[in-house]
């Protein structure tokens, strides 16, 4: 390794909640087997909007009682917070962080083998806790009209029940007293700091699709600088509004997969016939980042090492990447320079790989220009679809697991590849020493990170 022992940052724990597995073991096995979870969008969404895209990847929420979460937690926390807790619990457990409850039923833990003042959380999220925002704003809007609406509905013989019709408008019957707290994007990181007694920074990073990797980058910098010796870094995203409003928003933007293809062929990053990304209902992933020496003294074996990260902004458009005027090359070269490894050393690239026409074209062209056809390349979004704020964290976890296991998962549906890259269209085993993972977010955010096998 090129960095000095004192400043090395390693990953010692991973936790995941995804559509293809709610534990590292299940997730990784399903990745290698090329498993997906793709379904037709719910029929009742058609009553609100005629979408161009017809498929999504729904997320089954885990059993939160296994994480000691009570009725009060389920009522006062957004689902994005709940899945973040589930993922962070697993990451800390894998990292052998010892925890004990501060008091019975408190839901707050103390850790005997970490220094709270030198531990923090860094959370990436795109739309924050938008389920709670939407669930509470609808009843607020309806309230002034509700008496008139009730009276009118009583006269409508074709409507079986006003309650039934009103149920289509609102999940909540009134604005919750915790609506503001549940809706805050920072409630994810704040809840993690409260739950695990992390008294360093609790930072929230919102850079759309690059949020998760951006958050891990900030966690890395905090540990590398010595400000912290342990940090949770990751991302969480969940869209639970009953009417599919977030799906509709991305569909209206024209970003979602449109091709009239069968369910298992619609999601095809880096293929000629790609037509947009597969909308995912969400996911969460957290990594435990730790100073190498801190981990060694605790007797915990690292999963992988982070060597460097770099961010740039295109400063061009909120919506799209410009083919000739972007800052992606600078981001990749900056990450490699920060890692202090030669370009030729990169064995594997976990690409952003959304499946949108311009993104994949620009990304594949730049990757070929910098790396040529040598490194293996895959898209984790070809399995999961796009989990927005969680995607970069999930892909960083995949990159670390690929390095550790010397295996990369298949990138699905690349029948006619673009860009001349060395795509892993099937599971591939190789000696992997260094890897790059990268993400681009709406708004022109570019983040790259170089990881190494330990």
């Amino acid at each position: 390794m090129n960095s000095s022992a004192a400043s090395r940052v390693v990953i010692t724990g991973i936790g995941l909640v995804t559509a293809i597995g709610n534990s590292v073991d299940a997730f990784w096995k399903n990745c290698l087997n090329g498993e997906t979870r793709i379904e037709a969008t719910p029929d009742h969404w058609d009553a609100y909007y005629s979408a161009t895209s017809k498929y999504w990847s729904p997320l089954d929420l885990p059993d939160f009682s296994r994480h000691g979460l009570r009725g009060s937690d389920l009522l006062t926390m957004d689902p994005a917070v709940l899945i973040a807790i589930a993922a962070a619990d697993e990451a800390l457990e894998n990292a052998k962080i010892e925890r004990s409850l501060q008091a019975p039923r408190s839901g707050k833990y103390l850790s005997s083998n970490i220094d709270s003042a030198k531990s923090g959380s860094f959370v990436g999220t795109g739309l924050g806790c938008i389920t709670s925002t939407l669930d509470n704003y609808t009843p607020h809007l309806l309230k002034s009209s509700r008496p008139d609406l009730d009276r009118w509905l009583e006269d409508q013989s074709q409507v079986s029940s006003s309650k039934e019709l009103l149920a289509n408008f609102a999940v909540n019957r009134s604005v919750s007293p915790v609506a503001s707290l549940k809706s805050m994007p920072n409630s994810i990181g704040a809840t993690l700091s409260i739950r695990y007694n992390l008294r360093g920074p609790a930072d929230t990073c919102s850079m759309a699709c690059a949020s998760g990797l951006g958050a891990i980058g900030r966690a890395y910098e905090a540990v590398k600088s010595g400000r912290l010796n342990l940090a949770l870094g990751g991302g969480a995203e969940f869209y639970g509004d009953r009417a599919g409003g977030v799906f509709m928003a991305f569909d209206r933007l024209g970003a979602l997969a449109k091709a009239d293809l069968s369910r298992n062929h619609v999601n095809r990053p880096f293929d000629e016939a790609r037509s947009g990304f597969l909308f995912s209902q969400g996911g969460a992933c957290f990594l435990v980042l730790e100073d190498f020496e801190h981990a060694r003294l605790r007797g915990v074996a690292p999963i992988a090492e982070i060597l460097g990260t770099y961010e740039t902004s295109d400063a061009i458009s909120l919506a799209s990447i410009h083919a000739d005027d972007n800052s992606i090359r600078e981001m990749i070269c900056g990450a490699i320079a920060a890692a202090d490894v030669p370009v030729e050393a990169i064995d594997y690239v976990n690409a952003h790989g959304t499946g949108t026409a311009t993104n994949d074209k620009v990304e594949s062209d730049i990757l070929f220009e910098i790396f040529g056809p040598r490194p293996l390349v895959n898209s984790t979004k070809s399995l999961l679809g796009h989990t927005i704020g969680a995607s970069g964290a999930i892909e960083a976890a995949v990159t670390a697991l690929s390095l550790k296991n010397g295996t990369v998962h298949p990138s699905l549906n690349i029948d006619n590849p673009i860009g001349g890259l060395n795509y892993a269209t099937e599971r591939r085993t190789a000696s992997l020493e260094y890897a790059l993972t990268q993400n681009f977010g709406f708004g022109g955010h570019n983040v790259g990170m170089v990881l190494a096998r330990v």
Partner: protein
Amino acid sequence: MNNVLPINLGRQRIRKVVFAALVDVLALDEATLEESLKVVEDLDADSMSILALVIVIEDALSIEIDPAELHMSDATIGHVIDYISGQQEP
């Protein structure tokens, strides 16, 4: 929803709703609950679980409650039941 109960309910009915909310939100055994117990001091309710109690009671009774009016920091279960019972048309 209103801050006045839509129909007059007996205190016993409101008591049942409040007890059920405490069992649900704080994961308590109903057999251990008595009206003289203090919600914070005896039942370990924190600020977030108090808000969760309000959500469950509001939903069950179709009423809006101002959490500050409950004075939960010192209230007994009986005080909570009495406050809600008072939110009825005379």
